[in-house]
């Protein structure tokens, strides 16, 4: 790793730690750092225990993991397709996961009626299946003896539109309580996240991150083109499969935990790449920057903005102008 990349990664790590602390200490009921520390070692009052361990911690941990998952998934897809627009939210992975999850909420007979068992397992599984099927279809349709990133993006946009339509239809046909739950979930929010929705994304991050890091050198070489990568000994088919599965699993589990938080997968790797001045988004820095963005946006919704605006709204408001700015820049500046 280059020195500058190391520095950027460490800076992101420090920011993440700071935001985790802020998220745990700051909130509507005022606790001091000492109170929180006492509670964490089990010496707090039952009230403090509830606030810190059951309300604040799962939210912060979910924000951390969702941000890492989205940032890493975005970096993997952008590098793989050699195009910053080829992020999971644009090429249909996120909408596939959302469709799967909403189908589970609506068709599963009611999210809150069926109980925690279905939510813990059913939602992430449905999201992963939805995301995998969507990516397989999009990837298959855009394959022309190689990956053509513009085909991938255009077909992905089509898939996103289709799936969003079907998802809306599902919601319109659903019981009013399910529809409300699904609609609220679709905005992308960390409020009301419980430990049960944290576990799948935790497992995904712990398993996928090392696997993705084994592909660092291959990603580096594959920037030069498919033929030369093969010539340099990259087993391209296997490499592509690993990258796609990693990105899909990360995105889908993240979406199942918090709903789709827009633009994180798109923005975080691009900012990380510009900070590190590298030829492609650095994986670890992108992941950590994803966490910075999600945790930062969540801190804003809780501390600064009135009435708990969902995280997904904030990232969309910040991310969309960035997308437009990137689109209006010259093409050669894209990855």
């Amino acid at each position: 790793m280059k020195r500058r990349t190391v520095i950027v990664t460490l800076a992101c790590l420090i920011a993440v730690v700071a935001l985790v602390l802020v998220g745990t200490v700051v909130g509507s009921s005022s606790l001091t750092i000492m109170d929180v520390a006492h509670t964490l070692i089990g010496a707090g009052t039952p009230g403090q225990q509830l606030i810190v361990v059951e309300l604040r911690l799962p939210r912060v941990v979910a924000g951390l993991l969702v941000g890492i998952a989205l940032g890493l998934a975005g970096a993997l897809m952008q590098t793989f397709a050699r195009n910053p627009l080829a992020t999971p939210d644009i090429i249909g992975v996120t909408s596939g996961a959302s469709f799967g999850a909403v189908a589970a909420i609506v068709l599963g007979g009611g999210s809150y009626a069926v109980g925690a068992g279905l939510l813990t397992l059913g939602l992430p599984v449905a999201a992963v299946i939805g995301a995998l099927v969507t990516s397989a279809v999009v990837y298959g349709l855009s394959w022309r003896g190689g990956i053509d990133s513009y085909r991938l993006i255009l077909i992905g946009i089509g898939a996103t539109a289709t799936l969003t339509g079907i998802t809306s239809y599902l919601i319109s046909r659903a019981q009013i309580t399910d529809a409300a739950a699904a609609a609220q979930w679709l905005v992308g929010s960390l409020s009301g996240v419980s430990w049960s929705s944290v576990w799948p994304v935790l497992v995904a991050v712990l398993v996928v991150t090392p696997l993705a890091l084994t592909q660092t050198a291959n990603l580096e070489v594959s920037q030069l083109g498919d033929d030369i990568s093969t010539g340099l000994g990259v087993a391209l088919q296997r490499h592509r499969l690993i990258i796609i599965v990693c990105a899909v699993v990360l995105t889908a589990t993240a979406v199942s935990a918090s709903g789709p938080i827009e633009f994180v997968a798109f923005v975080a790797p691009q900012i990380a790449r510009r900070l590190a001045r590298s030829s492609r988004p650095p994986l670890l820095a992108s992941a950590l920057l994803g966490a910075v963005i999600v945790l930062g946006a969540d801190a804003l919704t809780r501390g600064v903005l009135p009435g708990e605006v969902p995280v997904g709204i904030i990232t969309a408001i910040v991310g969309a102008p960035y997308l437009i700015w990137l689109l209006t820049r010259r093409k050669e500046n894209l990855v």
Partner: protein
Amino acid sequence: MTLEARGVTLAYDKSVVFEGLDLTIDEGRITTLIGANGSGKSTLLKAFGRLLAPSAGTVHLGGHPLRDLPTREIARRLAILPQKPLTPSATSVRDLVSRGRHPHQSLFQPWTPNDTVVVDAALEATGLVELADRDAGSLSGGQLQRAWIALVLAQEAQTILLDEPTTFLDLSHQLDVLELVRQVNHDRAATVVMVLHDLTLAGRYSDRLVVVGEGRVLADGTPWEVLTPATLKRAFDLDAIVIADPSSGTPLVVPAVRS
């Protein structure tokens, strides 16, 4: 480490380019594939470099079918420079050339001092030492092509395949690149197979010319054996006179005036 095609059929989708082709590459020499546009010379080079799998027959490297060898192991013995590789952004010439070490590295053996030595030697051989810290995107066409060749040299493969290494270069830079190829062939006893368009330069820098067309090898031999008016007429539909190049003594192809 012989490279040979045995009964190879090459096709894109349904259109067959070669059928049952046999060709053995000479070790330690420079072989150039020539032929008209669309004759399949690049296709054949791709098959030798395992970028295109034959639909029948096999390409053998050192007696083993390419498809049975791990791709990384092939990469240590055989390097291929395709047409139009992508120049990464924010990457120095040295970093670009360093990627040639990829097949020699693994997760548990990321970078050794020997890798640095090899990359330095590749930069030296291609005259890029002074440009090593420049951004690859800022190089001129000729410099960039030398950087790609340096990457291939850093791969330390005994067999080197080059697909049209002189395209888009002016004549002087074409000569630079071909002199470099000859020097590599000489200094490292490397086997070189390349595709060239310019017949006179092909004749000057090759030990052996292979003319392809009509789905097979049309002519095969030394430049003087191959570059005859009859072969040029057949392979390129070109009326030409072949004389001795006053500078090098190799065949010089002079196209006849078309009336």
